[in-house]
């Protein structure tokens, strides 16, 4: 295992648990128990059953014929958009709610950017009858209104984060503060492969169902378990972690991580962490993050709330530093255009986050017989107003 996590909770130089003492008991409890719990047969059974009957897994691996024809290569879409609640996020929240139950927690908190993780958390809380509080940046509340409405319908309380850039980073700060204030009965369901160890590993494991399925689905369709490329967008990096997971150590499979360049990498309004970031600590984890020379975390920008984050998970920092994954930065405009293109070529409206992954074809040429799997991390229902306004439809 060269690219996956080591037994100290690090991916190479990245990871760890840089947390205030107030969080130590919670995080330590989780660290000591998560692998044990996940290995219990009753856990596995319940998790698998819910993924199948409730989430609707396996998600299809769909050969996008018209998109493939346009870019003269063989493009498969891994349809996480078809999951219950419309994105990959629920794979993780199902897992974590079952962990939280087994740890005896009664109250759930979460941060959310695009709102998909908030919805996925509110959903599993409704399913299990648990209290749910979701922190969400004020800006994101405005630009992802449909997901705010969904959370409310599901009985969750949505609390605006008013500090900083009022986006995902700040919502995460607020969630952490809540956890510090409620150390005993509360579990914090982090929505990506970020945060202190063991979160990045735990979330990656719950999301790894994505690449597990890709393996046998490709086998069925192509006679082999490996594609030439796997492409996924990276906010914190959970959908990418899931799509890469079972291929991490197989370097025949090239990994492409797609970041948000916002209005341009060097425009000052960007979230392209791999290009602009330096090593440091954010939300309890040592990783790459965008920061001033002085170590203050930069306010990021992306049109997509889910990629509007100044860091990446430690796995991705490691994949970047080691060159295991290629990182491509996509501007707002490229993403929006690719989102519209997929809608009209394949009848699938992607989340704006996901649309970044679909925009790589102008940056990267593939061979005609390359098999390129794009992780279609979520659907665009939450983004309709943005698309409509952007294109004046």
């Amino acid at each position, binding site marked *: 295992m060269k690219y996956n996590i080591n037994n100290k909770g690090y991916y190479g130089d990245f990871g760890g648990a840089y947390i205030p*003492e*107030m969080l130590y008991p919670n995080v330590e409890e989780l660290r000591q128990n998560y692998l044990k719990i996940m290995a219990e047969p009753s856990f596995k059974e319940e998790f698998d059953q819910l993924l199948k009957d409730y989430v609707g897994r396996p998600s299809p691996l769909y050969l996008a014929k018209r998109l493939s024809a346009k870019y003269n290569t063989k493009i498969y879409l891994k349809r996480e958009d078809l999951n219950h609640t419309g994105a990959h996020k629920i794979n993780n929240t199902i897992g974590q709610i079952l962990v939280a139950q087994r740890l005896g927690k009664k109250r759930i908190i979460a941060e959310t950017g695009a709102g998909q993780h908030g919805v996925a958390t509110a959903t599993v809380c409704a399913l299990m009858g648990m209290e749910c509080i979701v922190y969400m940046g004020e800006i994101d509340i405005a630009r992802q209104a449909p997901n705010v409405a969904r959370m409310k319908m599901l009985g969750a309380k949505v609390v605006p984060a008013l500090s900083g850039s009022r986006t995902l980073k700040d919502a995460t700060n607020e969630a952490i503060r809540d956890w510090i204030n409620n150390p005993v009965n509360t579990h914090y369901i982090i929505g990506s492969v970020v945060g202190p160890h063991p979160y990045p590993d735990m979330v990656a494991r719950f999301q790894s169902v994505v690449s597990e399925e890709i393996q046998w689905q490709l086998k069925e369709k192509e006679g082999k378990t490996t594609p030439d490329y796997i492409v996924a967008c990276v906010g914190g990096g959970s959908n990418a972690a899931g799509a890469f997971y079972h291929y991490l150590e197989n370097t025949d499979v090239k990994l492409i991580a797609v970041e948000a360049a916002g209005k341009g990498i060097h425009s000052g309004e960007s979230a392209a962490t791999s290009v602009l970031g330096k090593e440091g600590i954010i939300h309890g984890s040592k990783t790459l993050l965008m920061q001033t020379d002085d170590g*203050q975390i930069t306010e990021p920008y992306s049109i997509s709330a889910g990629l509007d984050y100044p860091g990446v998970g430690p796995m991705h920092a490691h994949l970047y530093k080691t060159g295991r994954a290629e990182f491509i930065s996509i501007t707002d405009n490229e993403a929006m255009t690719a989102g519209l293109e997929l809608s009209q070529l394949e009848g699938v409206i992607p989340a704006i986050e996901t649309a970044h992954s679909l925009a790589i074809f102008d940056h990267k040429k593939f061979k005609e017989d390359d098999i390129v799997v794009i992780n279609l991390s979520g659907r665009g229902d939450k983004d309709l107003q943005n698309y409509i306004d952007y294109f004046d439809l």
Partner: protein
Amino acid sequence: MTNMNRINKKLQEDKKLLSIYFSAGYPNLNDTVSILENLEENGVDMIEIGLPFSDPLADGPTIQASSTQALKNGMTTEVLFNQLKDIRKTVSIPLIIMGYFNPMLQYGVEAFCKRCQDIGIDGLIIPDLPVNVYNEQYKATFEKYGLINVFLITPQTSIERINFIDSISNGFIYMVSSASVTGGNSGFGSEQTNYFNRIAHMTLKNPQIVGFGILDNETFSQATQYAKGAIIGSAFIKHLSKNGTKKIKAFVDNILNS
């Protein structure tokens, strides 16, 4: 005994200690030094100088807001060190820098420690630098530069862990009154006093100073029944935001003799 750290010396005094936290560069960028001088003048025993951070996730709204303002005012690590470079000419009580780890990391931990020593800083409190990482990677450096690293404990910290923290501490233990971000409480209930009492009875090698929730004479007295001293943060920031650097004497008097 000349080499004894000011913190240790102070802890040996036969009195309950009042320590004050404020964010450097707040309310105005250049208020730092005068606030320090004022506090000492008015009888404060020890000061935590907050190095502002963009994402102070262990702090409540009051301290957050002061950090944000300080950053807007232009505070940086370098600016703070420059403001403090002659501080030992006028201030002699123990000074502790309290800040998050990322700015220190970017400065370079060793460079940061050296600069602290040069200035005459006595210790550091870094909420998000965990005990084991400190122990494995930074302890030697801190010690090299004569800096005391102060660890936190909370009501949820296990006895084993408190003992371990005590064993690697060489100043005081920062006893968080409740597992709660700063500025959230008012007055201590039995849950908290039981906790203070429990820790007091552990007879640790390091004295404890209580922080979080100290805001007036009453809470100061309550906390120092069980502990060596107490730290006031949010309440002082609120005072600064209302009165600027004036009336600091009134604030301190009010805590010490009500």
